[in-house]
């Protein structure tokens, strides 16, 4: 069964990019454009991994992380931060990795593979 990855990013082009990248590499990819949608999707699909943007309109990435950490069903899902902001990744303390945009796609895939195995 394919592993499920939830991509949370407000930029449609980046969401498309990550979805293509993950599906091309044998994963099922799901998308959310903001924190609220992210929580909803995560609760629904129970992903194996989440990629999280930090700077998003409305609530920002770390708030999603706090909310999912308080949910017993979501709190153990690994999170990879992918953000244009550097330094703010510390707001997501348990992130398995933190990549700065523009990221290296091989590096991302290697981290994803290692995390999901």
């Amino acid at each position, binding site marked *: 069964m394919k592993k499920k990855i939830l991509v949370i990013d407000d*930029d449609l*082009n*980046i969401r*498309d*990019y*990550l979805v*293509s*990248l993950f599906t*091309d590499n044998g994963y099922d990819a799901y998308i959310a454009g903001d924190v609220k949608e992210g929580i909803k999707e995560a609760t629904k699909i129970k992903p194996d991994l989440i990629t999280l943007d930090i*700077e998003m309109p409305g609530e920002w990435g770390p708030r999603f992380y706090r909310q999912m950490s308080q949910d017993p069903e979501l709190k153990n899902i690994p999170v990879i931060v992918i953000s*244009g*902001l550097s330094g703010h990744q510390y707001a997501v303390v348990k992130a398995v990795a933190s990549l*700065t*945009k*523009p*990221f290296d*796609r091989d590096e991302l895939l290697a981290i994803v593979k290692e995390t999901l195995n």
Partner: protein
Amino acid sequence: MAKQLYLIDGDGNHAAAVKTYIERRQYRVSCAGTRDAASLLFDAKIPDIILADPFISEDMVSCLETVKKEHPFVQMVIFTQKDMLNTAMDVFGSSAIHYLGLPLNSKALDLALNAAGTAVSQNRRIERYTERLSELHGTQDLLSQLFEEVPCYISVQDKNFRITAANRKFRDHFGNQVGEHCFEIYKHRTSLCNGCPVMETFTDGESHSTEEIVTSQFGKQYNVLTRTAPIRNEMGEITQVMEMSTNITQIRQLQDHLVSLGLMLGSMSHGVKGMLTALDGGIYQLETGLAKGDESRVMKASGQIKIMADKIKGMVLEILYYAKSRELQYEEMTVESLAGNVISTVTAKAEKHGVLLDISIPENLGKIDVDPKWMEASLVNFLENAVDACASDREKKDHQISFHVSKNSKNQICFTIIDNGIGMDIETKNKMFTLFFSSKGSQGTGLGLFIAHRVIKYHEGTVEVESEQGKGSRFFINIPARKPDSTKIIDFPMAGH
């Protein structure tokens, strides 16, 4: 040091005896028995004392007179036959320190030589004092020249903070203000400045430094780096403090350019990173689409790459546009539209802080030539500062900003902004348009009003400010409705709005 004595005596035996007697008293003695021999001695060196019989030849008198006239410090003791003493006194008068009759009495000779020796010692001391005084004058002249010509503002203040001395550069820029308070001259204040370095130096005797903004006698403002040094009296007490200020206005202006550029690039970097990632995504989609023969993915990727390339191009052009000097881009627009745009930008902020906006924009004001981007940013800045002034005021319950637009007889559009916020003291009011001056602490960069004011100036407009601390401020901004003949170059990057 042994004193040099010339003994001029026509009687060789007598001279030899006197020489022996005098040498025992630690004088170096040279003898001359004729006028010519005496002249040779005088040509070689002028002695401290001359012990002479002036009547050994006819021209000896004139020879001695000449020597005494040219070398007044030489002490002359005249001896001669007793019947000639009166004549000798008539000739030499007070030029000689003593007169002795022949045969010489040893005690009288001792007294005469002692008197001459004392006079020589005194003369030597006077000579040394004169030399030292001359050296002192030279040093004083040098120090005075250094003080005067050093290329920074130097003033000396007493314990009442009154200026007691100022160098030329200071006088050129701040006037000859000896006797006035330094804070009045430097800052046009009525009381001592906060953190005054002069006061600190009076207190601890150490040198202190601060960065200040001062106002010249012509109203020009300078950024200066100030250092102080104590001046002590013989007891070691600090009686005055010297204040040296270097004008760093140009450095600050350069920093302004760099900071503005930095602020702009910082705010854009997040967007740039997102675009580059999306561009990466487009390239990935294109590559994988081609590899898979997925035409729809290729088409989608191609569209995405094009959009991203356009966006990046636009942003780079924008950076270049902001970073470079440029002419004002005049456009004709209605005053109503300009004022309306400004108000719509400010309304949200005013509402957030509970500030009531009283707006009056008549419809019949016609059109105005402005660079809309700069002018709107400038007016918004003035209004947002008014909102900040209201938001900072904890004394009054209700706050209001009036924004009235009118046209005067000089065909100028007049924007009047009146707020009932915290108002400003004189110092803040004087410096409000100065680069990097901010009364908002960490909330302000000191750039906003500096740029806003320049924009008005470059449109050949004027800004007048009235303010009273605790009561509020009034800004009167007048801008020509028609574009001036020459177009100004905006020579700073835009920051903030």
